[in-house]
């Protein structure tokens, strides 16, 4: 799951309520409202996070 650092506490609180451990990739907040150039940084971070998490 990809979430912003601001919404990480919500994801963790809801995961705790469901007794699951999410595999979480955290990017800077926000995602909404960014233009294409600004969004590129989030895409890079999320892709790097995915590669690190999956070892691929």
């Amino acid at each position, binding site marked *: *799951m990809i979430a912003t650092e601001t919404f990480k506490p919500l994801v963790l609180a809801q995961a705790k309520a469901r007794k699951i451990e999410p595999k979480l990739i955290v990017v800077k907040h926000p995602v909404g409202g960014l233009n294409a150039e600004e969004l590129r940084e989030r895409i890079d971070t999320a892709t790097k996070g995915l590669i690190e998490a999956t070892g691929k």
Partner: protein
Amino acid sequence: MRIFNPTFGMAAAGGPAVSLKPVNWATDAIALISNSKPNARELLEGMRERLGATRKIDNIEFHAKNSASQPAPKDLIEAVAKKYRAALLALGD
């Protein structure tokens, strides 16, 4: 003095335990699921494109909730669970 705890409740019965199969992120089909907030799909599209440098991406497919404010429909969850080994969920907030 004794008080009742205003947060107290009984734990809901849990759902059935799910056993996860190992995922091969280099080849397996992956579902990209957007929560339908602006830029969630664009974020996933960008990731898909970058993954194309290291793996084939024609089995990485997009899905989205009908509405950002409502839970994903059961049939979407079932279809994704049936077809894919892994899912990437993006919360575009």
